[in-house]
């Protein structure tokens, strides 16, 4: 097997937010563990899907990686160098991001030309002509006409704006693309267009992506490997096929059963999970999922399970697999 080049290595990443109370909010009463001991490795040309419900830390994770947040602990290495807040300018241009809301992530006062040229203006010393040569083919790639350059974001629909956002992220030819819920604000028919475009671009540019979403079906469509998060922690990680066909962690299983399937002949499964996602301020002591897990035992409430290696890149943070784990 040929050695794969790790584009992004994340080790024991932590982000805690202090919860303050009292006069002038000076007293710290607790901590929200938004991201807690997350480790993974992203190889060149692959797409890692990060899935989880609200408050699971998936967005914080992508913001930590691109350096919008300062981690509390742990390490992020991008192309072998320290990343995050301390990223050098040269490194910064090789990591780009596509945001969730195509309405607030494009400056309404900038024409599409300026929006697309901005990363080049910041990171390179290209002449106007060079910039144009760079932008035009990309515009075509994302399915927008040349006339779009003169227009402003408000003249486009949500789907087209997201195409502009994708083009902007690709214009510097990044080594890593971070996508934070890029299709969740779009209608189904438009979402399909953008997902197909994304897939084409993945193939064409051999993109390396971290794709964050709450939607199982979208994750299945775009990812090679998947990371399931819950309350800031990694619950399970596996390649896409294994995860969707033979999920190990009770949370992953429940998550999959909860997705409504567009097939009325499928018998109603009812609500598979009782209760709510606990508030991250009062996260459970042991396994974060122990309050809702149908298999929870004494051990789960007391001791946080490590990620047990189940072989073949499959790992699950659940005590049920303590015996089966590959030593």
């Amino acid at each position, binding site marked *: 097997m040929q050695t794969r080049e790790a584009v992004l290595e994340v080790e024991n990443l932590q982000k805690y937010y202090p919860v303050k109370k009292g006069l002038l909010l000076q007293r710290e009463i607790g901590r929200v563990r938004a991201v807690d001991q997350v480790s993974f490795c992203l190889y060149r040309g692959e797409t890692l899907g990060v899935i989880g*419900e*609200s408050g699971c830390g998936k967005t914080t994770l992508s913001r930590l990686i691109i350096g919008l947040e300062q981690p509390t602990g742990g390490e992020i290495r991008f192309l072998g160098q320290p990343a995050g807040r301390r990223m050098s300018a040269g490194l910064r241009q090789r990591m780009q991001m596509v945001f969730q809301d195509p309405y607030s992530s494009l400056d309404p006062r900038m024409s599409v030309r300026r929006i697309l040229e901005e990363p080049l203006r910041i990171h390179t010393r290209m002449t106007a002509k060079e910039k144009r040569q760079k932008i035009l083919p990309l515009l075509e790639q994302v399915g927008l006409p040349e006339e779009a350059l003169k227009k402003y974001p408000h003249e486009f*629909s949500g*789907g*087209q704006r997201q195409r502009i956002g994708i083009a902007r992220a690709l214009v510097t030819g990044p080594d890593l693309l971070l996508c934070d819920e890029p299709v969740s604000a779009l*209608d*189904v*028919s*438009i*979402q*399909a*267009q953008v*997902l*197909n475009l994304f*897939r084409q671009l993945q193939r064409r540019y051999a993109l390396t992506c971290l794709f964050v979403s*709450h939607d*199982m*079906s*979208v994750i*299945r*469509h775009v990812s090679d490997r998947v990371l399931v998060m819950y309350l800031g922690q990694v619950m399970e990680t596996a390649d896409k096929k294994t995860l*969707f066909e033979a999920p190990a962690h009770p949370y992953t299983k*429940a*998550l*999959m*059963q*909860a*997705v*409504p*399937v*567009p*097939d*009325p*002949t*499928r018998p*109603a*499964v*009812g*609500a*598979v*999970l009782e209760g*709510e*996602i606990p*508030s991250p301020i009062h996260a459970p002591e042991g396994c974060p999922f122990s309050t809702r897990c149908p298999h929870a035992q004494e051990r789960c409430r007391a001791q946080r399970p490590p990620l047990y290696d189940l072989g073949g890149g499959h790992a699950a943070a659940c005590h049920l697999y303590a015996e089966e784990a590959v030593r």
Partner: protein
Amino acid sequence: MKKQNTVQPEAPAKDGKLLTVTGLKTYYYSGGRALPAVDGVDLELRPGEIVGIVGESGCGKSTVVRTLMGLLDPVAARREAGQAFFHGRDLFSLKEKELCRVRGRQISMIFQNPLSALDPVYTVGDQIMEMILLHEKLPRRQARQRAVELLREVNIPSPELRVDQYPHELSGGMQQRVMIAIALACRPEILIADEPTTALDVTIQAQILELLRQLRDRLGIAVILITHNMGVVAALCDRMMVMYGGVVVEEGSCRRVFAAPRHPYTRGLLAAIPSAAEDKEVLYTIPGQVPALEAPVQRCRFFGRCGCRIDRCGEKEPPLVQLEEGQRCRCWLAAGEEDQTAEREEAGTVADA
């Protein structure tokens, strides 16, 4: 059950229908132009039935129910035509005062974002009691007792405690349950749910859908569910209506429409959904955009994006064609050959006139 100081609900109409909406048209007015948000929609609801209205943003699905509930912005929007018979009375002919007695008591509604629909400065209990006391003469203590029972009914744990909490102290799923409790306070016959689970996580969504199903089974409430999610429709609804550009393009039992969708738009929508159960290499896409509202048109509204269009589609808007088993579809292709001839003749007479 306590004897309630309410008017006994009249028997449903003879044809067994609880609500019959015909020819509903609602236009928005902007810059001196009339924009048909809803352009001729018929809807029928039987007791205990769950009907889903699906469509993408701007298809008019919310406007239909807002018109029904009298919640239109009086400046920007107006109902142009249509009737809605509920217990033998046209909802649209009711005076505001009369409508207020139906709305909330016999027909109630829940919204997409529970946090903005709940008042942040009142406790959950106060808000449920407000609804009860508005429609029924009841001592406050009894109303409070009812509020606690309602919270228990929507599966909120420790309702005696929750009743004195404020909306911000509850999670999104709990807030939506409180909304449902308020809507159920006067035992309505119809519950209108406008994207009730869109703002919620999937595991919570599953719980709310299960709750709606239970309420229907237990209390026999008819539900109109508005959603953009085909999965939600399949999980919960008996019948469904697919809307596009202000009209119903396809309707029928869920089983039938999912098994054999006849309108190209319905087929496109179903094919465009990525699946969590299987890998699709390329998703089917409907070309183009969801169209902006425009002045009334003569052709099929899906004409510009349809892959199966024929000349006729650009000339005349297709009628809602009756197919087998109550399925109906607004497409020239679904209209059989005979229908086409009949239509052609009709078109001829119109042209002659």
